[in-house]
């Protein structure tokens, strides 16, 4: 287990670790799964540079082959060479911006075509085409904003403004004043952690001062806001749109069982969230892959994992045989005062993962093909 339960994104790290632990107990108690999982944990404290050493510790000192962990893309990039060198498999349980396929990673969080593309469609269909983009200054924000900008532009819309802030920055008064002044149809945020919470509070307050119902008239949308974070936002926690493959309010027998166990055991961490569920799903998938392979080695388990499915709390999850991401069902939720999300939209079924947005680009193809490149005499 390679999760940051301390540091700047500890709320999510703790939830992911808890989700994995819950699944571990279930696997070990399941008579149909003839294996026993023993967890070994390291906490890199949210420090990107500490991840490679932590991974080496697990793979070399403990001789471990299967690791659940990482949240930010920068931490994942940091550990990839270590997994490559030591023939180990990283089960990465977080949604991310895509544009990667590694033979040493199983991706159990949403790919961009499963969160940002459905969100762009929802915003265009329901809220208009004039957007404002704010984000924390790193690849997650840059890439999501690029994808949204292309989708808006293709639909004849416009990005009215785009600003980035250092992770953890809460000096956002000027930004909020400008946005309220410009009145976009919606705001797309990729601010993470405390920056995001402060932004939502300031925006709600500034809107109220001019008599604007912010949630209805100028909604904030993101691909990351989750149940684990709503308790930190206070009285501005409701009315925000989030795109995710999991919400604690999904109605299914699997989710009823999952959330009941979660609330009893980890209620102090808030309601169950997408990253916790992705970690839970990853552990169950590993157990099934090991049983199918009758082996625990990297190659045997990875090959057995291709095409594997699991009836998860979110519904059926299938590992794509080619890109090792998961087919999952996109959903849009709107946050409520009690720390959950109302479901506004559900895709009709699981959507194939498309990490490079080859098949599901929000915008029409930038180039129809290179035929028009022939020399003009």
């Amino acid at each position, binding site marked *: 287990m390679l999760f940051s339960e301390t540091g700047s994104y500890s709320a999510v790290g703790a939830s992911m670790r808890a989700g994995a632990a819950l699944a571990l107990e279930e696997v070990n108690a399941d008579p149909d799964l003839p294996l026993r999982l023993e967890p070994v944990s390291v906490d890199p404290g949210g420090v990107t540079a500490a991840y490679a050493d932590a991974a080496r510790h697990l793979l070399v000192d403990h001789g471990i082959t299967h690791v659940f962990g990482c949240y930010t893309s920068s931490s994942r990039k940091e550990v990839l060479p270590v997994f490559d060198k030591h023939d180990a498999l990283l089960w990465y349980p977080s949604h991310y911006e895509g544009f990667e396929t590694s033979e040493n990673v199983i991706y159990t969080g949403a790919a961009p075509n499963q969160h940002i593309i459905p969100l762009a469609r929802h915003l265009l269909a329901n809220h208009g085409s004039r957007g404002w983009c704010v984000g924390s200054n790193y690849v997650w924000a840059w890439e999501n904003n690029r994808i949204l900008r292309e989708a808006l532009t293709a639909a004849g819309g416009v990005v009215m403004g785009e600003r980035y802030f250092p992770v953890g920055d809460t000096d956002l008064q000027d930004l909020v004043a400008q946005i309220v002044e410009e009145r976009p149809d919606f705001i797309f945020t990729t601010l993470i952690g405390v920056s995001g919470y402060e932004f939502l509070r300031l925006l709600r307050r500034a809107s109220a001062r001019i008599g604007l119902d912010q949630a209805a008239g100028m909604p904030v949308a993101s691909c990351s806001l989750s149940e684990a974070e709503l308790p930190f936002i206070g009285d501005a926690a409701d009315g925000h749109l989030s795109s995710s493959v999991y919400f604690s309010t999904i109605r299914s027998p699997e989710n009823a069982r999952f959330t009941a166990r979660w609330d009893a055991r980890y209620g102090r961490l808030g309601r169950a969230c997408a990253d916790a569920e992705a970690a839970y799903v990853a552990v169950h998938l590993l157990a099934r892959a090991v049983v199918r392979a009758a082996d625990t080695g990297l190659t045997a388990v990875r090959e057995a994992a291709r095409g594997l499915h699991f009836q998860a709390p979110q519904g059926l999850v299938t590992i794509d045989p080619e890109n090792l991401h998961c087919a999952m069902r996109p959903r849009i939720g709107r946050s409520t005062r009690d720390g959950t999300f109302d479901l506004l939209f559900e895709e009709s079924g699981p959507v194939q993962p498309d990490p490079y947005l*080859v098949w599901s680009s929000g915008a029409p193809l*930038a180039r129809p093909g290179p035929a028009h490149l022939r020399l003009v005499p």
Partner: protein
Amino acid sequence: MKPAIATNFRGWRAVVIHRPDENRQRLAEVLARLGLEVRLFDPGEPAGAAEDCDLILFDADDAIDGTWPAGADTDVPVIAVIGNEAPSRLARVVCRRCDSHILKPVRSSGIFPAVLLAVNGHQQRRRTEREIGTLRQRLAGRRMVMKAVLRLMAELEIDEETAYEGLRREAMDRRLPIEDLARERLGGGPEEGPSAGPRTSRNV
């Protein structure tokens, strides 16, 4: 605003010239995942004509001259797959004007950036080449413009500035490059047709 770069290569036709091994297999898998249509050729096996492909990937370690698609030298982006780092091998990478490269052993990571850089680098190079062509043409026409200005100065007894300005305005009115107009005035005719216009000075 700058044009967006190409990031989606769905439907692009790639020719891979590489002996059948794990590298080639991985290359083919990842390119297919990126939406490209891949055709595989062994070194020495003719790969047809360049009109049938949009991108070439070739093994820089092997002798592939007989395989190279005919007419491909200037038309499509080229990616070298490099294992051996000896200068004699790398020389052909330079000669083939490769737009990017992939190192062996081939892994999943590194292929998408190589394709993206090759395609966009190639497009930039083509734009630059077109610009150079245009500039060369204009440079060649400069002597004609000077000659035409001198003739106008003599015929109408005007100064150089007035002569040039008159020529420039007529070129603009008729939407002609000033070089073509000058050529026409001197009796050479525009590039694309015979000199039709009478040698008048109506606009001067």
